[in-house]
């Protein structure tokens, strides 16, 4: 008893201190309210203990400490989950204990119970039947299994289970002294049990129905010792489950979600999967009461309280809980063996079976050992009817365990007792084994699941790392205090690249792909993560990640792109570092909660990152690539006289009049279709495919962002059509930018990168890995010569622009870059506009390059 009080007091203390741990400071509002429940629990149990000790000197010494520990543990857990339920549970606990004391004080009740056994059971059945007419569900919509009004509800199926036990014990006590035959024994009891079970099945209270069937089977088995009863009942249950699968949707659902919960973890098996993740989150020692997130499992306070306990006290706790129930069962069987009348014997055995089956059913359901059945965990779960009934049962057990001078009755079927005890112990052992499986062996896999929603809680409690630009200017940061932390994007136009992390909408963009570093679970030393998880049940503080973006250039690009649709990608042609990535229209992740639907339904699709996900036909922008290719081969054509080209009754034209003097180079610069068609004559389709593959048009860029699935090489069916952008090949601005980089960078195309390094606590700045460059044009000299021939007059850059109409939209492309001999950082840019505006595309491209070429300000 003392140890039990100590354990409950300790867990209350942990709950009080838990906010300090969560927030890493002592200046917090501590949780005190559950001490009311604790005081009530202590007073009631000491009272019961005193009274019982005075009354019977040698009643069973285990029952009260056992049940006090179970109910105290449950009470603290319920307070932790929901304080208002905690008060109610305290109230029900007092009712239960007062009834327990009364029952053990007035044993005359038992003569009464025994004599009118049919009456009691019938009353129980009638009350249960009444729920068909007057049943309600206290918490809103749900199965209508409760009776009552004015805030007081009770579930008649709970006392029904106990009444059935009493009835069976009384009936057997009458029959056993005479040598019985099985059919005689079965007839009346079977009718009563079957009617009870049938009623519960009709109410869809499958857990209670299974329980009643189980109690009946085991009690009759104890009385008769016929093993075939167990087999028949097991087969019956199996057949019933099979038949139920065909008839009732509820049963089919339960069985299916049991057999394969991973198939539909968001809807139908949400509860089971969340429960398993919760168990996994507990690992060995648990998070500590008040420190985990068991509230993420639906109805954690009643059906899933075992999962809540497993999360907050770990495998150690759940094993202890299972052992407590095993002990309780063992005790009941022990009392039964020592009983001096047949009635007491079957009563206490029946109650033991009732507790054991109920505990195994619901804990098995939580741990996916068995299909989920909605029964309560005796003494622990929230629920007045269950708690009061359980304590009445304990009162009966105490009465049956009263010391007596008479020797115990001889045992009719000792083997049956051995069997039943062994079966239940095997059940509890299986529970223990599967708890270990989920919380240790499978823990990492379960916690890594995308539907493990604990990150949402950590978002508020653990500071997330900042996202910095290349000059350490903050792009995204975390504001507020632990407990009310908030993620803010300081430069909103980058919305569809940076993305968001939001409890309602999940994760996207770089916030999703860099989540490991930003949330502290990656990049920190393993020992630090382990220590933080052990002490705070939180990951350590998140790490800052430096991006390659240059916010000054980004501002220039976003300023020019405002009110236009399209994308801009500017990158370092040698290292692949992306300096600017703009996609318009964009969205502001800071306003996600208010404007999500508006953006989702916006035809301009602001959620799409056009730079990486927007696929555009290539129009006549591939000219510089064909030019470099043919220069390498040494077979450049002569410019035709007519610069336009008629394709499919459509007149394709240059983006704007070419510069003078007119040449193949200046025609390519403004995307004149005839120049491209002329060049394509010297390139076979297979060669064109090879070139496009080398340029990266058929492969997804390796970047930490969602990219569109690339076009396939076999979509390129004709080199002529491909040259004027009339094949099915489509390219994203990012792919185009990295292709352009090949021209600037002497024929070699870099792998793009956005995330450059992580600021780790011990190793300093750690550079993140990136892909390796690809050689597009083997002959460096011929490529650089070709690019120099394409150079503009005004700036030391090369460029090309193209605008072509497709159905209703005209797409304008611009690509360009520094010249190969440029001494500074080599740059490449690709711009796409969803309008006919070569002028703007050229302005953006030239302004960006101009700005980038100026020496960096420190």
């Amino acid at each position, binding site marked *: 008893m003392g140890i039990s009080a100590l354990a409950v007091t300790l867990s209350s203390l942990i709950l009080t201190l838990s906010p300090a741990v969560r927030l890493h400071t*002592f200046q917090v509002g501590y949780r005190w309210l559950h001490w009311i429940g604790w005081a009530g629990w202590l007073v009631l149990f000491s009272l019961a203990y005193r009274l019982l000790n005075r009354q019977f000197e040698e009643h069973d010494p285990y029952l009260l400490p056992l049940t006090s520990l179970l109910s105290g543990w449950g009470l603290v857990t319920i307070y932790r989950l929901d304080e208002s339920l905690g008060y109610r549970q305290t109230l029900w606990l007092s009712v239960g204990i007062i009834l327990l004391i009364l029952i053990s004080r007035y044993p005359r009740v038992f003569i009464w119970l025994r004599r009118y056994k049919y009456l009691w059971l019938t009353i129980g059945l009638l009350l249960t039947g009444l729920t068909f007419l007057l049943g309600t569900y206290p918490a809103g919509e749900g199965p209508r299994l409760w009776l009552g009004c004015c805030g007081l509800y009770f579930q008649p199926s709970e006392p029904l289970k106990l009444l059935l036990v009493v009835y069976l014990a009384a009936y057997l006590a009458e029959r056993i002294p005479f*040598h019985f035959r099985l059919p005689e024994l079965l007839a009346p009891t079977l009718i009563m049990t079957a009617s009870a079970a049938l009623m519960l099945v009709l109410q869809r209270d499958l857990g209670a129905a299974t329980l009643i069937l189980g109690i009946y089977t085991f009690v009759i088995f104890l009385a008769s010792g016929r093993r075939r009863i167990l087999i028949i009942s097991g087969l019956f249950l199996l057949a019933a489950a099979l038949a139920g699968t065909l008839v009732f949707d509820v049963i089919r659902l339960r069985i299916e979600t049991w057999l394969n919960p991973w198939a539909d973890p968001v809807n139908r098996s949400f509860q089971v999967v969340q429960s398993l993740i919760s168990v996994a989150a507990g690992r060995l020692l648990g998070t500590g009461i008040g420190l985990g997130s068991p509230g993420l499992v639906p109805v954690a306070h009643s059906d899933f309280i075992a999962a809540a306990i497993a999360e907050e006290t770990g495998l150690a*706790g759940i094993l*202890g809980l299972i052992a407590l129930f095993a002990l309780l069962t063992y005790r009941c069987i022990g009392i039964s*063996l020592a009983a001096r009348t047949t009635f007491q014997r079957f009563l206490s055995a029946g109650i033991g079976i009732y507790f054991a089956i109920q505990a195994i059913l619901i804990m098995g359901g939580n741990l996916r050992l068995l299909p989920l059945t909605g029964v309560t965990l005796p003494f622990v779960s929230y629920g007045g009817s269950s708690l009061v009934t359980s304590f009445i049962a304990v009162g009966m057990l105490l009465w049956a365990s009263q010391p007596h001078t008479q020797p115990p009755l001889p045992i009719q079927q000792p083997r049956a007792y051995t069997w039943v005890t062994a079966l239940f112990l095997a059940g509890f052992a299986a529970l223990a084994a599967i708890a270990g499986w989920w919380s240790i062996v499978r823990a990492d896999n379960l916690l890594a699941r995308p539907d493990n929603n604990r990150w949402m809680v950590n978002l508020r409690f653990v500071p997330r790392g900042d996202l910095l630009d290349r000059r350490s200017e903050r792009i995204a940061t975390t504001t507020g205090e632990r407990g009310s932390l908030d993620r803010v994007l300081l430069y909103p136009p980058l919305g569809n690249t940076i993305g968001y992390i939001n409890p309602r909408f999940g994760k996207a963009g770089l916030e999703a792909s860099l989540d490991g570093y930003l949330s502290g679970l990656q990049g920190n030393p393993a020992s630090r993560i382990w220590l933080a998880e052990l002490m705070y049940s939180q990951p350590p503080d998140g790490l800052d990640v430096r991006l390659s973006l240059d916010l000054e250039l980004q501002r220039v690009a976003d300023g020019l792109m405002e009110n236009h649709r399209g994308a801009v990608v500017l990158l370092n042609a040698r290292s692949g570092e992306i300096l600017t990535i703009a996609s318009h229209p964009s969205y502001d992740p800071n306003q996600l909660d208010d404007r999500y639907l508006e953006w989702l339904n916006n035809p301009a699709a602001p959620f799409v990152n056009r730079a990486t996900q927007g696929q555009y036909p290539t129009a006549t922008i591939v000219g510089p690539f064909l030019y470099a290719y043919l220069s390498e081969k040494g077979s450049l054509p002569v410019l035709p006289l007519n610069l336009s080209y008629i394709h499919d009754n459509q007149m394709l034209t240059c983006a704007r009049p070419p510069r003078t003097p007119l040449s193949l180079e200046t025609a390519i610069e403004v995307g004149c279709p005839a120049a491209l068609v002329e060049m394509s004559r010297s390139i076979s389709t297979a060669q064109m495919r090879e070139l496009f593959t080398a340029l990266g048009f058929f492969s997804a860029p390796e970047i930490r962002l969602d990219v569109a699935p690339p076009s396939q090489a076999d979509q390129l069916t004709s080199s002529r059509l491909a040259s004027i952008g009339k094949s099915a090949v489509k390219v994203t601005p990012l792919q185009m930018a990295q292709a352009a980089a090949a021209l600037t960078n002497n024929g070699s195309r870099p792998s793009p990168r956005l995330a450059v390094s992580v600021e780790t606590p011990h190793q300093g700045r750690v550079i993140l890995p990136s892909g390796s460059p690809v050689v597009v044009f083997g002959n460096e000299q011929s490529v650089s010569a070709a690019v120099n021939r394409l150079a503009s007059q005004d700036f030391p850059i090369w460029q090309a622009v193209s605008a072509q109409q497709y159905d209703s939209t005209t797409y304008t492309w611009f690509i360009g870059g520094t010249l190969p001999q440029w001494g500074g950082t080599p740059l490449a840019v690709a711009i796409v506009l969803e309008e006919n505006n070569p002028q703007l595309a050229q302005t953006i491209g030239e302004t960006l390059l101009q700005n980038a070429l100026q020496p960096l300000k420190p």
Partner: protein
Amino acid sequence: MAENPPPLAVHPLPNLQYNASMSGILVLILRILFTLALYAFLYWAFSVIWRDLRGRTQELTHESIPALLITPLDGPAEEVTRFQTSEVILGRDPLCHLSVPDETVSARHARFTYQQNQWWVEDLNSTNGSYLNGERLTARAVLVPGDELRCGQLTFRIEMEPKKSN
């Protein structure tokens, strides 16, 4: 444009405050104590119960009951019936453990029970009464090997096999 980003201003490491780590350590100790208390409770309960139950089952298991041998002395051949259950009922009723088709024996005549390491016999309010070694049974009596029990007009010799050692 420089290749390498310029060095950062010293970034504060996410360090745990002294004050804050105290709360974590304090609660960790409490959590361990809670687990220890839980297991101390289980240890106490299991150790006591284990001893208790072992003693009790040994007393009550099948094997520890010495078999009861009942021999009817009036029949043509002395047929010994051996019982290993803890309870034996003798009577005319065919459902009795030992059923004897004799008019002078009541349907449920006498009961043998094994309790407190002894075989007992009691009369079940039979019409003609039961006599142990000639004396009428009025209460439960302890049996010893060689006792003769008369039920109606039939006499039985009672013997027990020596108790098997466990």
